[in-house]
């Protein structure tokens, strides 16, 4: 007889009518889960470095549990070895001893208090899990493809058996801590996937050989864990349906489907479908990958197994998930990064508040931070990882003020809605007719960069709900300040594109700005030199190259895209190569002549490049911001400068600045 832990009645929720499949119950094993939303396990590096659960992690999980609105909420994977093999992240939770049970129970309790189903995950990170050890563990010694990871020690037969028992013992601790569902992680290059893959498993004992033999480690764990948790707790496994390791002799897709069948035979109730390894050369989750790209993967898996399947990758929106469930491609909707960006994302769908969702921009800063031993952060969500700190949330202002904000970009708008939320009277001025500031321009770059604009949709909705008054097509001037005398001025006017570095030729007619090039308000020749090798220059270079231009990128940074998240930069480097863009880094323009540009290398060499048009995309301090700041000072008005007006950065700096100043006014 199936049991249900919490009753949820979605009848009166608009989201349940709009997304009937997402908000319908699903049975995993003997457990009925009220809806088909799952928050996927995510490391956050918030726990203590000896594996104990912290208040910060409990608060982080509580928010995500509230967001799944009765669905499945998964805690981060635990490591299970006292020697710390398998620990992939410095702040990863541990479960190698009973002493960790009270901390784990705090997570389970927090999830239950939000009336969600608590999922516990076992995660041995295998050949990528050795943050506190001199080497990693794996089925076979195999040199690392990525220098980031430590050498691999080949596990002895005894060590393999010990590891299986560690999984079983840690599973029992999860049950004792009060979790309702058990999950085993075998994805992206972690230990179970190392045993499964022909790429990393070269063993000649009973744990190596053909695909069936390579499954033994996984099936032994499944059987052992099942024995420890009993028949009533659903058991999920996360495994690759496609390793994307064809270039190094990884499993074929057919072999992966055999793995799926063996997992089901061993006793799992559900499989979370994943694609790719950390060592894959094919991108899976970056922004350039279209939404829904990977839906064919679980659809194919469903032909081979008959247990419920879920998938997370590039499936951010409920309409897509609802249709995928309706079409039988997946059985429930898994998400991770969207709920890092907005913990309440599914709940807002349910409540019909889609305009309130703060959308993930798939930048992967969250992952990049974890790999660099830093606490989780979100590019777009300033409160992420600060859930335990009330000062990070808007409180009513003690004195209501009139706030004038110059600039309707992400910094100004973020500040506007937060300040208005606290009770201030907020006016936003922008000389453009459309909100968005620099993001409007950034959204013109190819590879789905138009997704960036969704933050502006969010801001607009929040401002409208809180009565922010917009003065579009109107510049906030010294005269307005003098006449209106607001209590506070926030200067969020962005940065200026710099017309040159003083070199001869920048005053020529064929030298145009990034915006003139992108909007084609001035003619752009076939051969273009873009000056500026940071984000704006790269986006502009790619946009022009996509139009068939021969583009050369010149800039002062030592490597192209130094201001881009390292986990994403390699993608841009690849795009530049694919589009035939030549880069001169650590260089500057020495002179612009008829039909060519002379580039000066950092050590004084001069290189001629043919060019019909030069586009300037380097940014510097805003002259207007300085003027406005001086005017506000003249009137003794409380003044803040935020976003790119302080120093040219990116969307994250703008949003975080805006939020924090919105809290402070």
């Amino acid at each position, binding site marked *: 007889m199936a049991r249900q832990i919490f009753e949820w009645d979605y009848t009166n929720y608009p989201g349940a009518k709009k997304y009937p499949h997402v908000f319908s119950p699903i049975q995993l094993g003997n457990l009925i889960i009220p809806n088909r939303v799952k928050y996927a396990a995510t490391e956050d590096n918030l726990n203590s470095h000896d594996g104990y659960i912290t208040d910060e992690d409990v608060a982080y999980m509580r928010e995500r549990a509230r967001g799944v609105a009765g669905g499945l909420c998964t805690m981060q994977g635990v490591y299970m070895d006292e020697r710390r093999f398998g620990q992939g992240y410095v702040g990863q939770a541990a479960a190698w001893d009973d002493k960790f049970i009270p901390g784990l129970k705090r997570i389970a309790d927090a999830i239950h208090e939000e009336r969600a189903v608590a999922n516990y995950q076992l995660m041995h990170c295998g050949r990528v899990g050795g943050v506190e050890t001199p080497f990693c563990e794996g089925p076979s010694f195999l040199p690392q493809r990525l*220098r980031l990871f430590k050498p691999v020690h080949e596990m002895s037969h005894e060590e393999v058996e010990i590891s299986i028992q560690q999984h079983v013992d840690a599973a029992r601790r999860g049950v004792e801590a009060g979790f309702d569902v058990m999950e085993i992680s075998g994805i992206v290059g972690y230990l179970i996937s190392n045993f499964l893959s022909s790429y990393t498993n070269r063993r000649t004992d009973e744990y190596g050989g053909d695909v069936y033999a390579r499954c033994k480690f996984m099936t032994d764990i499944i059987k052992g864990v099942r024995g420890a948790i009993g028949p009533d707790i659903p058991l999920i496994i996360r495994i690759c349906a496609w390793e994307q390791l064809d270039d*190094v002799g990884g499993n074929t897709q057919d072999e992966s489907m055999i793995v799926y069948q063996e997992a089901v035979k061993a006793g799992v109730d559900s499989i979370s479908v994943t694609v790719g390894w950390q060592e894959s050369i094919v991108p899976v989750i970056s922004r350039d990958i279209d939404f829904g790209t990977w839906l064919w993967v679980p659809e194919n898996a469903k032909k081979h197994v008959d247990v419920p399947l879920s998938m997370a990758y590039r499936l951010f929106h409920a309409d897509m998930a609802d249709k995928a469930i309706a079409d039988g491609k997946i059985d429930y909707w898994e998400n991770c990064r969207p709920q890092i960006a907005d913990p309440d994302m599914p709940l807002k769908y349910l409540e019909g508040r889609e305009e309130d969702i703060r959308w993930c921009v798939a930048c992967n800063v969250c992952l990049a931070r974890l790999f660099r031993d830093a606490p989780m952060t979100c590019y777009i969500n300033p409160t992420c990882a600060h859930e335990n700190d009330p000062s990070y949330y808007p409180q009513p202002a003690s004195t209501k003020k009139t706030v004038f904000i110059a600039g309707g970009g992400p910094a100004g708008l973020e500040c506007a809605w937060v300040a208005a939320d606290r009770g201030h009277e907020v006016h936003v001025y922008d000389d453009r007719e459309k909100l968005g500031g620099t993001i409007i321009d950034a959204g013109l770059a190819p590879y789905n960069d138009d997704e960036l604009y969704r933050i502006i949709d969010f801001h607009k909705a929040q401002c409208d709900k809180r009565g922010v008054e917009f003065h579009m097509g109107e510049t906030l001037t010294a005269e307005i300040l003098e006449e209106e005398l607001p209590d506070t001025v926030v200067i969020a006017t962005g940065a200026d594109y710099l017309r040159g570095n003083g070199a001869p030729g920048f005053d020529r007619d064929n030298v145009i700005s990034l915006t003139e090039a992108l909007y084609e308000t001035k003619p752009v020749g076939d051969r273009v030199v873009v000056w500026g090798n940071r984000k704006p220059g790269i986006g502009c270079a790619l946009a022009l190259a996509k139009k068939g231009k021969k583009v050369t990128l010149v800039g002062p940074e030592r490597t192209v895209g130094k201001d881009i998240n390292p986990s994403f930069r390699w993608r841009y480097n690849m795009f530049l190569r694919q589009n035939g863009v030549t880069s001169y880094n650590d260089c500057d323009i020495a002179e612009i002549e008829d039909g060519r540009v002379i580039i000066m290398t950092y050590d004084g*060499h001069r290189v001629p490049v043919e060019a019909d048009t030069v586009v300037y995309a380097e940014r510097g301090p805003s002259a207007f911001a300085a003027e406005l700041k001086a005017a506000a000072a003249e009137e003794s008005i409380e003044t803040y400068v935020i976003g790119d007006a302080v120093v040219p950065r990116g969307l994250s700096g703008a949003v975080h600045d805006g939020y924090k100043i919105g809290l402070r006014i």
Partner: protein
Amino acid sequence: MSFDAEKEIAKLWAKCQAVQDENRRTFYQCREAAIQMAGDGADENAIALKAWEIKGKDVAKSYLPRIRMDKPKFVENIAKLFVNSWRNQGAVVTVEPGADENEVFIVWERCPWPTTAKQYGAPMAEDLAGCDLALQTTIADVALFSNRNLKIETTKAIPRGEGKCVRRLWLEQ
């Protein structure tokens, strides 16, 4: 402002060669330091070979992300990685086909390493053994990573006075 292309290229070329020279000199300077630190009675040859082995290991690390076993001409592609490495060090190297796609010959028409070895008083036997060991070490890691029985052997060597270095790279079936 006028632009003299020939002058710019000449300057860049000179700098490139200086960097290549400096690279080899640094290797032999560190070799000398290690030998001196090891003291009297130390096995100089063993110390030098260890340095070459470490070099081979590190070269392998840079090759592994570039290996594409799903592409044709696997052996030739590995050979081209060696060619690029040694060209960057100032050698003149090419790949010549072998009996089939599982065999190629890497030919060093010119290599500056023996000259530098002489400048620092290192024996030619050490230079040859060191270079061989570096290549063997690199290939061992590449073979292990790719799970293929890749082999390399020296058939001719400049340090032996044979005019050029020739290495046979093959996949043993």
